[in-house]
């Protein structure tokens, strides 16, 4: 029996067998694959669907694939898609109400029953899942749909060896080593023999791994694996010092920088849609033409849309300045008050996928460089 603390090594065939074992166990495999000029998260059949020798270049408002010239299967940073697509899908039916001669029949949407194995989850993404777990699956009113999807997910994390130009997980203390609730975690090694050093994080992970031929990791394997993430930690494209960040932002709610960003921002909501921790949704009610069937659906929404903060009589956040400030202060400041952590995991998606390349690390740095001497938050 494999020990929880034991590390084992799989070669490429072994890693392929691991994916196959997950599929044989009834999991749908979702993982990175090349599509539409990016490495997206999508259904994969097995190892052959993973990107091979493909890397990514990411910068504010910019993403391109590149040829790495090697055989790496995980040689890139995060995808435009976040795992919330699986756990908090863009649209979820909630309830259907049918009217008939005998009255109203209320039918809750069926609970999700799909077992999904998440392949290649990064440290920042694992941290984002932990944040959404805290927000959605705990407390007095856990979200049943989210909790059911989460309970049926298997996480095969991959420690990051290729951070992108927009990454800053080191600042947010979420990577490049995945920490926390994975079932298995792999480090891909490309020196000499192409192999994967595997750590076990749960009984489910141990049980799957036991079905695959592996060998015990040597000290050299473990040292090489540690070197991958140690090196990655030096390759961060960005940094965002977090000391005193909450108080800094709350003391600068009238800083001129908010208008500066509002002048450039398109209000398009790509940042929130891409962010792995953003969880805001709206509930929509529709009827069919007969009026006998009413459907309630939950869909992604964003604090960047003008209608999102619409209350009776008008919008609570009528300007883009107010909307951007709401987003950033929630992520980096009031999230601490509400959920006891930062709402940002440093994945860089909001920077890369902003069509105009607005960069929250740069906005924070600008406020830090010239904080307002006094603002109404002080008094």
């Amino acid at each position: 029996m494999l020990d929880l603390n034991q590390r084992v090594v799989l070669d490429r065939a072994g890693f392929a067998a691991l994916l196959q074992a997950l599929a044989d166990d009834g999991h749908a495999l979702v993982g990175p694959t090349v599509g539409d000029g990016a490495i997206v998260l999508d259904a994969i059949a097995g190892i052959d669907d993973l990107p091979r020798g493909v890397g990514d270049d990411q910068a504010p408002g910019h993403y391109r694939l590149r040829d790495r010239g090697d055989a790496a299967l995980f040689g890139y940073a995060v995808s435009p898609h976040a795992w919330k697509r699986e756990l908090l899908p863009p649209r979820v039916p909630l309830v259907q109400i049918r009217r008939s001669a005998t009255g109203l029949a209320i039918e809750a949407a069926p609970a999700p029953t799909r077992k999904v194995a998440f392949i290649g989850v990064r440290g920042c993404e694992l941290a984002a899942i932990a944040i959404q777990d805290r927000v959605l699956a705990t407390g007095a009113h856990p979200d049943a749909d989210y909790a059911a999807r989460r309970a049926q997910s298997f996480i095969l994390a991959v420690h990051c060896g290729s951070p992108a130009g927009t990454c800053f997980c080191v600042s947010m203390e979420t990577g490049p080593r995945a920490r926390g609730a994975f079932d298995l975690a792999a480090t891909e090694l490309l020196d000499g023999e192409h192999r994967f050093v595997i750590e076990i994080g749960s009984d489910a992970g141990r049980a799957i791994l036991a079905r695959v031929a592996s060998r015990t990791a040597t000290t050299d394997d473990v040292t090489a694996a540690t070197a991958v993430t140690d090196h990655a930690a030096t390759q961060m494209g960005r940094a965002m010092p977090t000391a005193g960040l909450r108080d800094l932002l709350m003391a600068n709610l009238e800083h001129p920088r908010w208008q500066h960003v509002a002048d450039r921002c398109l209000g398009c909501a790509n940042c929130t849609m891409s962010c792995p921790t953003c969880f805001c949704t709206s509930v929509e009610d529709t009827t069919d033409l007969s009026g006998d069937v009413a459907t309630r659906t939950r869909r992604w929404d964003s604090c960047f849309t003008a209608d999102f903060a619409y209350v009776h009589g008008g919008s609570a956040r009528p300007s883009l300045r107010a909307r951007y400030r709401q987003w950033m202060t929630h992520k980096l400041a009031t999230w601490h008050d509400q959920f006891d952590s930062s709402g940002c995991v440093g994945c860089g998606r909001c920077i890369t996928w902003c069509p105009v390349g607005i960069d929250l690390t740069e906005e924070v740095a600008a406020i830090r460089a010239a904080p307002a001497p006094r603002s109404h938050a002080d008094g």
Partner: protein
Amino acid sequence: MSRPTLAVWKFASCDGCQLSLLDCEDELLAVCGAIELASFAEATSHVAPGPYDLSLVEGSITTPHDALRIKEIRAQSKTLVTIGACATSGGLQALRNTRDHAAMLASVYARPDYLETLATSTAIADHVPVDFELRGCPIDKHQLLEVVSAFLHGRKPNVQRHSTCLECKMRGTVCVMVAKGQPCLGPVTHAGCNALCPTYARGCFGCFGPSDAARPVPMADRLIALGTARPVVERLFETFNVAAPAFREGAARARGDAPPKDHE
């Protein structure tokens, strides 16, 4: 109880939007069961007298006669919904609004003096109060059905006014602007098409017109910074919704002009 009456009216337009109603093949029987078609030239030549419970108006106002006709239709309609880019912003034909109208007529017609037209093509809402504007060139038939259902059941149509980018992201489409550097108007364009063009690897053309909080100036600046020539950016804003104030502002920015005056 008698069914509510529906009338469909045409002004300067191509008929594409009202054809969306006939395009609702699977739902057409249900539509006809729920409402009485009082006037719909594309389906029947019969025109029942008003008043009408719901009028769908396609097309823009381009003649003095139409400017009067829309007032009569409004007076005969309990609810009036405009459909499509022509009815909601003046349409492609609003290209005339900033050009020499007389010269344009003379270049096409041998006897322009036979014509009685206005120098501008304008949205229906510029002439009469409108209860709801459904965007698109053409409109989306699912949205049309939603608007008709909402009207029938006295609820708000479930039609979002935010940017097309939300639809792109919800579909999981990879952004063509970020990943390919293609010019895309999605960030300033009203949702409704379910991000059709980006999903087929092309930038958005803006056929649904400006989103509720569109930012045309930084949009134009970004397209230019990405290497799109200024006249191309200008053209991008000057298509189906050329007269929409936000798109005029984007075109003016691309030309390097001051923003158009009548925009708040």
